[in-house]
């Protein structure tokens, strides 16, 4: 029997002393090996859900299991099972790409010899080999995004969480990132992805969930959802299900 990459049951969560996102009796299952897209308007609860799944936030009720391990109770070692590519640049701009990858590799517990090989491999695949010794603060937006991704996959995780991994990058960088993610998925990594780039999502994701007000309002493959709702594209589907009201 296949273990789901993520299994959320009866989840309840609310930010302390704050109104806004409030998960109640929330359920979701993401199969291992999927390229799963999580979409919704601003404030829908995507980033909160991502933070709950990666253990950055603690939930009060229910259960979130990552590859059969309860996130709230996990020992730190379970963090080797997943990688996280946050929306914000998550590295040290005063260090070079090589130095950042070497540092995070050590934090993932990768053996020193393997860190070097993996660093060179990732720099090569993501087109950063020639600039690997330059400080990241001198990098372009696209290069920074690629380094951000490289750190998240440094340890070949079984599940990779990506929070808007291509925001603000040029076409070439987006192409490189999406291609790399597809290859990573082919090698067995489950991708859990959020973005506002709906075309990109349609290209990448094998299954999607639309979330609004901390509730799932649609969950299936894109083809099935388009057919069910009589839409031709992702944007039409999105607007039909979430409405045209501003969510700022």
């Amino acid at each position, binding site marked *: 029997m296949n273990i789901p990459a993520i299994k959320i049951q009866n989840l309840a969560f609310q930010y302390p002393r704050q109104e806004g996102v409030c998960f109640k009796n929330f359920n979701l299952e993401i199969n291992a090996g999927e390229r799963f897209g999580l979409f919704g308007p601003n404030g829908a609860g995507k980033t909160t859900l991502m933070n709950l799944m990666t253990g950055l936030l603690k939930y009060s009720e229910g259960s979130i299991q990552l590859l059969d391990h309860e996130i709230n109770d996990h020992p730190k070692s379970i963090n080797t099972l997943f990688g996280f590519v946050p*929306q914000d640049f998550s590295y040290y701009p005063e260090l070079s790409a090589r130095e950042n990858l070497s540092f995070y590799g050590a934090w993932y517990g990768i053996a020193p010899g393997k860190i070097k090989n993996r660093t060179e491999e990732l720099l090569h695949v993501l087109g950063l080999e020639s600039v690997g010794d330059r400080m990241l603060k001198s990098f372009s937006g696209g290069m920074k995004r690629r380094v951000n991704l490289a750190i*998240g996959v440094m340890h070949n995780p079984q599940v990779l969480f990506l929070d808007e991994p291509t925001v603000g990058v040029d076409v070439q960088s987006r192409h490189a990132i999406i291609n790399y993610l597809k290859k990573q998925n082919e090698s067995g990594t489950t991708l859990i992805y959020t973005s506002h780039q709906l075309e990109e999502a349609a290209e990448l994701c094998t299954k999607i969930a639309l979330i609004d007000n901390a509730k799932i309002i649609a969950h299936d493959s894109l083809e099935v959802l388009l057919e069910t709702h009589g839409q031709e594209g992702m944007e039409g589907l999105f607007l039909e299900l979430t409405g045209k009201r501003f969510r700022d």
Partner: protein
Amino acid sequence: MQIIKATIIKDGKILLRDRVGLFMMFFMPILLVIVITSVQNSTFELVNNNKISLLVFNKDKGPMGAQMVDAIRKIGLFKLQLADSTSSDQNLVATMHNQDALVALVIPRQFTAFIENKAGEIATRALKDPDSSQIKSDAPAILPDSLIMYYHPVMQSSFRQSIEGAFRSSVQVIQGEAIVKKLYEAVNQKEVPADLEKQILFSQVPISKIPVSRSGSRTVPNASQHNVPAWTIFAMFFIVISLGGTMVREKNSGSFIRLKTMPASYLHALFSKQIVYLTVTILQAAVIFAIGNKIFPYLGLPALHLPKDGWALFIVTAVTGYCAVNYAICVGVFANTPEQSNGFGAISILIMAALGGLIVPSFAMPAHLQNILQISPLHWALEAYYGLFLEGGKLKDIWMNILSLLGITVLIQIFTLYGLKKKNLI
């Protein structure tokens, strides 16, 4: 171990690449120590080496007024200036300002008459009937005008009292001499021989002045011995500006979010920061002490004499640096913005420095502050350094200060752990 090593390398590289930050971390404390020592050194010299400028207006035409001036001169405390005989009390104040005199003394007109009559009265009483209060001389027993001492209002009370004491001592010398003369003349029916007079007046018991030190050294502590250790501690604790700010920036950055999703605990990152910044504080102290020892004489400042117990110096420096680093981490954990960290960090260090006796000696503080100052780690660090630099002590003489400093460090660490848990950082 691999994580700690990688994090130390990371923190070290980030620190070394921040050239401006490094410059501020080393140059500013050095500048601070030089400026404070220079300022304190001039005060030190004013009090210890420079004579107090004294303007004397002698209205007395008799010998006692002149003797009084002579006696004051012999004390050696004053740079004497005599006011013009045409002067008046009114324009004396103006003369004080013009001639930069801190003190002025007016010797009244009947000073000689008063002293001589007083001496005569005492001598007569002593020779005839000491119990009788009926024997009176014809001269007035009360001086019509007292000695008047004008002083600059900035003069501290204790300083003023010591000057007043010097004047009283001079009066006593003159009065004593007059009494002895009168007694001698009454008994021997002739004047006191000059050599006997000198013997009576100047064969006082000498006072040897010896500074106390644990090492037995008789080197007098100078402004450098006082100020360099004190302001080095201040500089070490000022690491809060750099480290506290770094902590907040890292905490608010994406890199921290990433670290939180990793297998290792954030405590590894904190441990690495302790090692790296402890090294910085030890280097700061080493550089400042080296400059005090080697460069100060070229700047016209007294050289800093390093304690003989080098290990004790290293241990005090390391424990002080460790406490400073932990304090900075604590501030960084609780602050939400670099502004909060810098503002609170800087002001709190100033307060702790004031409480710790860096600005005003702790013994001069009011009683209620004497208890509070014990919570300041800077106080214990200063006491330990003074034990080594001023008293020539060894490790065994200052271990209580080191233990107190370590105790405060542990309390800071416990508070930091509470903050880390409360803020969901570990």
